[in-house]
C-alpha cells in the first residue's frame, strides 16, 4: 500500500465515520470480489463488482483498484482514485462525486455525476519551490527552537547519526514499517481512527526532529554557531533532500534512508535526552 493510498484511506475513513454515515465499513484492498448487501464500502486496491440485481447501502469510496457497478448503490459514491465503471443497469440513488481516478459511465446508467478537475495536475516548479521553502523554514525554526531550549539534544541525535549510522537506520526503518502498518490496521477498526491520526502526527514530528538532527550535523561544518547553525543546517538538509528527490530511484532511496536514519537517531536517544551507545561487546 503506497503512502498516497494510506493517506486517501485515512481521509476516507474519517469522512465515513465523522458524518455518522456508516456504522460498518468494508475496506477491500486486494483480490477480485463481488459485493452485495453491504454497508459502506471502501475500494482500496481490490477489483470489486456489484452484480446486477444487488444493492449496496453506501456510501462507496473508490480510492484504488476498480469498481464495476452493475447493481445499485443507495447512497453516494466518491471517486478519489482507481476506476469506477457504471454499466447500463447501474443505479446510484445519491451522487457520484468524481475528484480523481476515472469514471466510465454507460449511456443508460441512472447516475448523476458531479466532478471537479482538481486532481492529477502536479504542481509546477514554482509550487514545488514554495513548498520546499515553507518546509525548510518551518523545520529550520523547529531546529533553532530545539537547539536553544536544549542545546545538547540536537548534538546527541547528531552523534548517534554520525557514530552509529547502520544501527539508527535499522531502527528507523523497522519502526517506520511497523508503525505505519500498525496505524493503518488501527484505522480499520474505526474506533481507533483518532489514535491513528495522532500516531501519524507523532511520526511526522519524529521524522522532523530527525531532519533537525541531520541539520545539526551539517550545522557543525558551517561558519556560524549555536541555534543559527542548527537552523541553517536544517534548511540545507531540507533543500538537499528535495534535490535528491530529483534523481530518479537512487535519489529517492538515499533521501528515504537519511530520513529513516534521522528517525532512528531520535528514537534511540530518547528524543535527544540520552546519548546512545551500543551494548559493549568484547573485541
Amino acid at each position: 500500500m503506497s503512502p498516497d493510498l494510506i493517506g486517501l484511506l485515512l481521509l476516507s475513513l474519517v469522512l465515513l465515520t465523522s458524518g455518522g454515515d456508516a456504522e460498518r465499513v468494508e475496506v477491500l484492498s486486494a483480490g477480485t470480489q463481488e459485493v452485495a448487501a453491504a454497508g459502506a464500502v471502501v475500494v482500496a486496491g481490490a477489483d470489486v463488482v456489484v452484480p446486477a440485481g444487488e444493492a449496496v447501502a453506501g456510501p462507496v469510496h473508490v480510492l484504488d483498484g476498480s469498481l464495476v457497478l452493475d447493481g445499485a448503490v443507495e447512497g453516494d459514491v466518491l471517486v478519489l482514485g482507481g476506476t469506477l465503471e457504471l454499466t447500463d443497469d447501474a443505479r446510484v440513488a445519491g451522487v457520484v462525486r468524481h475528484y480523481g481516478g476515472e469514471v466510465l459511465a454507460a449511456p443508460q446508467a441512472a447516475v448523476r455525476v458531479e466532478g471537479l478537475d482538481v486532481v492529477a495536475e502536479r504542481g509546477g516548479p514554482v509550487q514545488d519551490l514554495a513548498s520546499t521553502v515553507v518546509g525548510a523554514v518551518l523545520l529550520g525554526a523547529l531546529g533553532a527552537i530545539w537547539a536553544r531550549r536544549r542545546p545538547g539534544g540536537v548534538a546527541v541525535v547528531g552523534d548517534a547519526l554520525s557514530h552509529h549510522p547502520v544501527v539508527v537506520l535499522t531502527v528507523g526503518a523497522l519502526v517506520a514499517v511497523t508503525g505505519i502498518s500498525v496505524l493503518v490496521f488501527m484505522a480499520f477498526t474505526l474506533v481507533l481512527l483518532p489514535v491513528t491520526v495522532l500516531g501519524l502526527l507523532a511520526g511526522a514530528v519524529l521524522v522532523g526532529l530527525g531532519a533537525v538532527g541531520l541539520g545539526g550535523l551539517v550545522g557543525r561544518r558551517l561558519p556560524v554557531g549555536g541555534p543559527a547553525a542548527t537552523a541553517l543546517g536544517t534548511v540545507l538538509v531540507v533543500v538537499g533532500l528535495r534535490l535528491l528527490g530529483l534523481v530518479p530511484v537512487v535519489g529517492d532511496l538515499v533521501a528515504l534512508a537519511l530520513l529513516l536514519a534521522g528517525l532512528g537517531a531520535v528514537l534511540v536517544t530518547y528524543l535527544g535526552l540520552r546519548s546512545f551507545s551500543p551494548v559493549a561487546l568484547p573485541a
Partner: protein
Amino acid sequence: MTLLQAVRERRWVPVLGAGAYVAALAAGYYYNLTFVQLGLVDLGTRLVGMERRDVSVLMAVLAVATLVVALATGVVLDRRGWGADLRIKLRVLLAVVVVQLGLTVAAPAVATPRGLLAWVLVCAVPLGCGIPVMFSLMGDLVPVADRGHVAAVVAGLAFFAAALFPMQWRVEEFSRMLAVGMAAALPVLAWAASGRSRLVDLLAAQDLGPGRFCRGASAGERADAGRGTFVVLVVLMFVVFFVDSLGFLRIVEAPVLMAASWQSTDVGVRVFIAVTHVVGAAMAGVLYTAFARRWLFLWIFGLFAFTHLLYTFALRGGGDGVPPLTLPLFYVLAVSFYTTLNFALWPDLSTARTIGLRTAVGVGVAGWLASFLSTALALWSADAGVPLEAHLRWVDALALLALVTVPVVLYARRVRLLAREGVPDEPGPHRPAAAVAGPADLRR
C-alpha cells in the same frame, strides 16, 4: 579482534573460520527447513500414502527422538571436554553428514509406514548429534563481537535459498539437490576432520573466550553463569518457535494465502520473500549487536502478534486474488529475527565447559521440539477439520499472550530486584522523610 579488524590486518585464519561456519550452518539449516520439515510431510502423505494425522505423529516422534539424542550428545560433549575440541567436533560432523547423505538418498525409496518410522528413527541420530556439534562451532570459529552479524548471514543465506529453490516442494527434488550438495561438501569436511589440516590447527588454537552473556563471571562460576537467564530464554524461544510453526503450516497450505507465501508460483513473490529474509536477518544482526536482548524479544513477539492479526484480518476481508505482500513481509521479518537470535544466543550463553548441553537444550528444546510439536499440532488441526480462521485465532491468542507477558515479566523482575534492594533511605524531592522510614520488613 573482530572479523573486520582481521580483514584490515590481513589475518585470514579467523575470516576463513567464520566463512566455513557460515557455509556449514547455512547448508545445515537449509537441509532442516526443506528436506526434514517439508520433505517429511510430502514423503509421508504422497509417497507412503499415510493420513496427515499419522504423519503428524511421526513428526512428533522425530522431534522427541532428536531431542533425546541432542541432549545425550550435549552431555557427552561437556563431560568429556569435547565441546572445546574443534577436531573432535569436525569428526562427529563428518559422520553426521555421511549418515544424512545415505538417508537423503534413501528417502524417496521409503514405501511403507513401518519403513518411514525406521527412517525417522535413524534420521533422529545424525540430527540430534548435529545440533550441539554444529551450533557449538560458533564458540570456536566466530569472535563474540561478530556473532550477531554472522548469525544474520547464516539466516539470510538459508532462507534466501529456501524461498527461491526448489520450485517443487517434493521429496524427490529435495533428495536429488541435497544429495549432490552433501556429496560435494564431504571431501572438504573429510580433509578438515583428518587432523592433517594446518588451517584447522590454527583455528583450534584461537581462544575466543566465553559467550557474551557469560562475561564477567569468574572461571569457577562460569559453569553456572546465567543459568536463570538461560532457562527463561529457552522458554521464550520455545514460545516463538511454537507460535511460528503453528501458524506457518496452515498458512502455506491455505489456497487463499498460498499466492503470497513461500509456495507461490509467482517468482516475483518468492524473490520478494527471499530478499526480505535477507534484509530482516541483517536488521536482526545489527540489533543483536547493538541492543540488550530484551528489546529483540519484544520486537519478535510484537512482530508475530501483528503478523498473525494481519493474516486473520486478510482471511476475513480478503478476496480470491493475491493477498497483499504486507502479510509475508511481516512474517518473514519475524522469522528472520528469531532465527538470527537462535543462532547467536545459545553460544553466547555458554562457556567452553557448558556449550554442548546449552546449545543442545537451546536448539533442541526451543527450536526442534517446539517446531515439530506445533507442526504436528497444525497437521492434526487441519486433519480434524478445524477451519483456518479458527486455527489462526488460537495462534493470535498465543502470540498476543506472549507479547503481553514479556514486558509484564520484565517489569515484575525489576520490581522484585528493587524490592530486594530496599527503598532508598534518602527522602526524594517530593517525599517527606517519614514516608520512607517505615519498618524494615516493609522496605525489603
